[in-house]
């Protein structure tokens, strides 16, 4: 509020406020307020009209009383009257009162809206400013309804003053945030983009905020903003600090605008080369500037400079395409790692975590390992240490795993309790993932249990046992190490569990040594028995009975133990039952039977590490994804983004590659070849969207899931949907995680799955209902059981409705259940393949497709994609080594469809020929849709359908 001029002093108000301040007690205050209210009421009631000044004064008093926490139920009318005054101060107080005290009272709202409309229509910039501020401050839906159409016009009108434009942009932003559906997109959008070129930097700043928010929702419409933003940015960055006068903050030119522009650019993939060059130049300049000596000692200077720098670095990471920049960013961050300022160290570590997952800068990040380890040891702030742990985890690979794991282990001894469990999980994962030598793995995990036994969760020791059992080479070593570890006088219960299990299985491998003879092993384990909890004791009893099998010489000793009262008559039912049954088994059964019953455990089926799942669960599915996965996702993001790749100078498709000896189909049941007439349609464009328009971006995500089972399907400001799914034959199970990203509860949270009629017959889905309320920050899980009845084309739609705050939210996304999920790889030899390939030669059974590659073909990437797609990659099958060949069977409840696939890249022309043959042409076609070539044509016997509007994750 500007200082009130002398003549406008409102002495009465000042006196009233000082009276209130001087009140001795609450009662006195209430009395004074009651008196004042009565006075104002009598004044308002009075027959003679009040002049503007006193109206303003009384409205001001009411406002003050309201702000003290008392109800005000009159005076609205007077405030609205003030709105139509011509004096600035009166209008201002009127607007202030309205913004603070407005409620959705029908008649008044109409009057207020009318007043605002008049002000907006007036040519007076201050009045327009006041009106816009009021709209933004109230920001209700009613306001949006009334003015959402008008404000864009003001914003782009040629004759609007700069300050008004600024207000209008921010006001529109506010309305868009509260009710995006009410803000119409129209021709004004292109003109808003041109505001980035405005002379006035204030307007540019406001417009950038607006455009950034709008662009997140409608990236296509604001695509042109990229080049404008880049040129604006380069002008700012290259300007001398004195050029921008008012917008230079402690020698940094327009830091806020720079940060906002960089944020805007993060909504888009890297721009085309011309612009990209300029952007790279900008980013380089920013990085250069960071190297310059500071122009001022003031903290504001370095804060502003670093803010721009960090935003630039996150843009570099987002683009992930310029190795040079990434490395430079990494070096810059490396300098910050040793900076005095704790916040800088924290930010540097955090940014480095993301840098580490980029393939270009991973190596560069690794050079800072010593510094990071040092930070872990000496840092005083726990949150910074936490980041250091994260970074170590992120930068870990085969080359430095041993060092990092050792460091983390030694840090674990002194680590804060709050992060211990996480470190334990991370150590366990890294040790497993990068174990070259499994003896090292076993050592590490045993160390882990020794150091932080309490924080070692069940999953960790389960995993050790799984690995030891599955690997013959490490079993003897494990038994020996465990035996040695158990000799410590006090060892953790988890160690006893691991020890019991491993000795029970592989105790015989070390029994030859007289120092670890069967009896000594048994006595060692039994000495720990009484200190353990019931589940561990139960496990030890099983170990004993295994000993009976392994070492007949200790049988009597063990039988004595089992027979003792403390076992046979144990109060715990589980222990008692085990003791009785094992005792009986050992006495009754012959050696052969014993040997069969107590045989060594069979190897566990390989599956995703349960520890990883646990770490993910601890942090939410999205934040810690597997590194590889994150990398892949990132590359998919960049490569398959909405931006069309530049058309490469392609020559005509040369008659490609050899079509030698073609194979035959896998054992496929003879199904009648379906009529494929009307089916060749774009399956994605006519998907059933009965409930709500699909959330923007969901198509992108959907396509990404074609070759992937886990990840984030959908994310906006409120909600995050993560998926984890597994498929086996014709059955599948999908875990959907709904994460509430806000701090408020979602009410009436109802996800529903919608299938078209066609789909319903072909795909059966079963879900369990979820809890209708989702707390802020919480996550709920829903399980979907899937069965593929017959082949299908469409994907089911997941529609989610919930209430957030007062507003009703409706989100629809396609669930990535595609036919290829039921694809099981089949291995076959070269001869078989081509024999079957030949058999499937009828036109209905074949689909051929030639398309241009968007990107240089990378053998490894392509291989990964074929495997991700679900088929087996058959190596050394095709005589031409450049070709890729795959085979697999699609399982449905009714049939099994064998599919063969060949990909013949033509490297010179960057053209690929993809052929598929299957027992069903239909199936083949749908597979195609799943893989979705974007710029290809599908060649089938019936018709040629252009598939240009298919979106896909990547062009295999």
């Amino acid at each position, binding site marked *: 509020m500007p200082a009130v001029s002398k003549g406008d002093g409102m002495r009465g108000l000042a006196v009233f406020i000082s009276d209130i301040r001087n009140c*001795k*007690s*609450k009662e006195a205050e209430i*009395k*004074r307020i*009651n*008196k004042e*209210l*009565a*006075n104002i*009421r*009598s004044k*308002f*009631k009075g027959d003679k009209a009040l002049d503007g000044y006193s109206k303003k004064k009384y409205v001001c008093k009411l406002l003050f009383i309201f702000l003290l*926490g008392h109800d005000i*139920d*009159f005076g*609205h009318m007077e405030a609205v009257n003030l709105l139509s005054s011509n004096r600035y101060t009166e209008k201002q107080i009127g607007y202030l009162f309205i913004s603070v005290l407005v409620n959705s*009272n029908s008649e*008044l709202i109409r009057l207020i809206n009318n007043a605002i409309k008049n002000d907006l229509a007036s040519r007076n910039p201050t009045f327009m400013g006041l009106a816009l501020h009021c709209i933004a401050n109230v920001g209700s839906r009613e306001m949006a309804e009334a003015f959402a159409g008008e404000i864009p016009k003001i914003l782009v009108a040629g004759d609007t003053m700069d300050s008004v434009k600024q207000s209008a942009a921010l006001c529109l932003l506010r309305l868009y945030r509260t009710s995006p559906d009410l803000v119409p997109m129209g021709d004004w959008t292109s003109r808003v983009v041109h505001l980035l070129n405005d002379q006035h930097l204030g307007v540019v700043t406001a417009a950038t905020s607006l455009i950034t928010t709008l662009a997140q929702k409608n990236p296509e419409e604001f695509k042109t903003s990229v080049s404008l933003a880049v040129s604006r940015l380069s002008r700012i960055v290259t300007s001398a600090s004195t050029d921008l006068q008012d917008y230079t903050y402690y020698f940094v030119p327009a830091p806020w605008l720079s940060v906002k522009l960089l944020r805007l650019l993060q909504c888009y993939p890297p721009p085309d080369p011309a612009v990209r060059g300029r952007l790279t130049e900008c980013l380089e300049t920013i990085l250069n500037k960071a190297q310059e000596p500071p122009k001022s000692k003031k903290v504001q200077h370095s804060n502003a400079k670093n803010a721009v720098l960090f935003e630039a670095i996150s843009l570099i990471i987002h683009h992930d395409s310029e190795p040079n920049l990434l490395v430079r960013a990494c070096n810059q961050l490396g300098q910050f790692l040793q900076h005095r300022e704790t916040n800088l160290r924290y930010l540097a570590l955090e940014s480095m975590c993301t840098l580490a997952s980029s393939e270009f800068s991973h190596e560069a990040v690794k050079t800072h390992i010593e510094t990071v380890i040092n930070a872990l040891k000496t840092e005083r702030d726990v949150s910074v240490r936490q980041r250091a742990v994260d970074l170590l985890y992120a930068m870990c690979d085969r080359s430095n795993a041993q060092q990092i794991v050792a460091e983390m282990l030694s840090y674990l001894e002194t680590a804060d309790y709050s992060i211990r469990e996480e470190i334990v999980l991370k150590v366990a994962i890294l040790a497993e993932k990068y174990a070259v030598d499994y003896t090292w793995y076993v050592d590490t995990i045993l160390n882990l249990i020794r150091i932080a036994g309490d924080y070692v969760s069940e999953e960790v020791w389960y995993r050790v046992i799984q690995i030891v059992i599955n690997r013959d080479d490490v079993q003897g070593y494990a038994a020996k190490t465990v035996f040695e570890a158990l000799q410590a006088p006090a060892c953790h219960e988890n160690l006893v569990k691991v020890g019991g299990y491993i000795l029970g299985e592989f105790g015989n491998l070390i029994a030859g040594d007289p120092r670890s003879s069967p009896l000594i092993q048994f006595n060692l384990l039994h000495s720990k028995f009484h200190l353990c909890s019931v589940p561990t004791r139960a496990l030890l009893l099983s170990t004993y009975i295994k000993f009976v099998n392994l070492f007949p010489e200790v049988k009597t000793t063990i039988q004595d133990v089992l027979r003792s009262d403390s076992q046979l008559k144990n109060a715990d039912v589980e222990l008692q039952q085990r003791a009785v049954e094992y005792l009986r088994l050992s006495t009754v059964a012959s050696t052969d039977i014993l040997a069969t019953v107590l045989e060594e455990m069979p190897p566990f089926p390989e599956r995703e590490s349960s520890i990883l799942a646990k770490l993910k669960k601890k942090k939410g599915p999205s934040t810690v994804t597997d590194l590889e996965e994150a990398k892949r996702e990132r590359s998919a993001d960049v490569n398959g983004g909405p931006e069309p790749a530049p058309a490469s100078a392609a020559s005509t498709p040369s008659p490609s590659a050899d079509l030698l000896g073609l194979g035959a189909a896998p054992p496929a049941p003879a199904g009648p070849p379906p009529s494929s007439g009307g089916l060749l349609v774009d399956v994605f464009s006519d998907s059933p969207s009965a409930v709500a328009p699909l959330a923007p971006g969901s198509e992108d995500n959907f396509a990404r899931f074609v070759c992937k089972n886990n990840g984030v399907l959908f994310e906006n400001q409120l909600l995050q949907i993560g998926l984890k799914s597994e498929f086996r034959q014709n059955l599948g199970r999908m875990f959907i995680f709904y994460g509430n990203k806000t701090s408020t509860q979602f009410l009436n949270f109802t996800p529903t799955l919608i299938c078209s009629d066609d789909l319903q017959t072909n795909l059966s889905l079963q879900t369990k209902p979820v809890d209708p309320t989702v707390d802020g920050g919480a996550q709920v899980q829903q399980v979907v059981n899937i069965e593929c009845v017959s082949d299908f084309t469409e994907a089911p739609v997941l529609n989610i409705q919930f209430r957030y705050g007062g507003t009703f939210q409706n989100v629809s996304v396609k669930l990535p259940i595609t036919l290829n999920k039921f694809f099981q790889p089949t291995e076959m030899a070269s001869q078989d393949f081509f024999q079957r390939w030949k058999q499937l030669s009828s036109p209905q059974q074949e689909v051929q497709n030639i398309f241009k590659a968007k990107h240089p073909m990378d053998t490894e990437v392509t291989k990964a994609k074929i495997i991700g797609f679900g088929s087996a990659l058959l190596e050394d099958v095709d005589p031409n080594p450049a070709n890729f060949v795959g085979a697999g069977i699609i399982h449905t409840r009714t049939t099994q469809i064998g599919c063969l696939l060949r990909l013949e890249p033509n490297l010179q022309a960057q053209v690929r020929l993809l052929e598929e043959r299957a027992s069903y042409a239909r199936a083949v076609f749908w597979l195609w849709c799943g893989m979705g070539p974007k710029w290809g044509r599908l060649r089938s016997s019936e018709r040629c359908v252009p598939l240009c509007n298919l979106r896909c994750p990547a062009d295999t």
Partner: protein
Amino acid sequence: MIGGLFIYNHKGEVLISRVYRDDIGRRQAVDSAVFSSSGPLLEERSQANRRNAVDAFRVNVIHARQQVRSPVTNIARTSFFHVKRSNIWLAAVTKQNVNAAMVFEFLYKMCDVMAAYFGKISEENIKNNFVLIYELLDEILDFGYPQNSETGALKTFITQQGIKSQHQTKEEQSQITSQVTGQIGWRREGIKYRRNELFLDVLESVNLLMSPQGQVLSAHVSGRVVMKSYLSGMPECKFGMNDKIVIEKQGKGTADETSKSGKQSIAIDDCTFHQCVRLSKFDSERSISFIPPDGEFELMRYRTTKDIILPFRVIPLVREVGRTKLEVKVVIKSNFKPSLLAQKIEVRIPTPLNTSGVQVICMKGKAKYKASENAIVWKIKRMAGMKESQISAEIELLPTNDKKKWARPPISMNFEVPFAPSGLKVRYLKVFEPKLNYSDHDVIKWVRYIGRSGIYETRC
């Protein structure tokens, strides 16, 4: 057991803080376990804990956003019992499960003691007498257990005239000790008056809630008998009143007396006595006999709900004329003997919250619209029995956006009348002092009845 006692001023600043037990304010048992092992820390810790408890009460009660109405507040498993005297808050704090009635009894007693020592309880007085208050607190609470809080007894050894021990002989000291620890701790021996005199006050407050049609919705009288005695020696007193049970018992003994005694007897719902009254005798014979303390004390408290004489009747008439006007007419009628005079009569008529102006006409007394209290206050100095008076007011209203209807709070009234609305009568107070040579007849006795309004409300 009371863990501590704090006195705050209206701003929530602590004037007096006395902690009897270390448990208050301790947040976790773990803390105490950790810190009990280390000596110097413990001191610091308990200091900090005390702060916690003190601050908790200030933040949650004194400075609470909403007015705290309950006298007992539980904050972090600690109970705070408070009473408020003008602007001063007295809060007793405990962590244990105590008898709340005991704590409040103690707090009231504490107020009485302080009032007896330095008059009105005000911030000024408390600041001026804080050494004395700590002395008193040391004496009347021991490790949180209330001790002798009889003013008379306390005054023998806690004085306000500086150090007295020089003047006090050994004998005097031992006399005090034997009195305080003896059977009759409330009276010392060897009191002598030239004029044996006693004053009896029957103080009652009458509470009423009446419907607009004049139907009594609830009514009760709570009263107390206060005695001020200036008697020599160790006199044995016997107090008699028109208690229904006693009268009927006597009636059985002498049959004809019942018919003769036209005076009413009253039914007492419940009563409590000063510690000097022999309860065993009251239980068996329902007679009230005692050796009174010297000076003023409260002999008994009682409550009645039947056959209450309502000194005033309020007849309200409220008429809403359109949305912007209200007409109020209130008639009060006095309902007692014409020879008696009621005093300090005040009628408070609440006005709606959107009142913008009031015109009042009354025939007697003075009436005024008090905006700060949202009420019309009508004051009459004196009014004889069986009279009638009326006030009429026009209230102008400001139309508001609020659709809420005015809740019409009841009209309340204050007054003082020279009789006991419960109908209680003192029949006798006999004094026997066998050792000294004065008899019952030599004692000059005074009796006074005062009936005051408690919450005396009529709905309109």
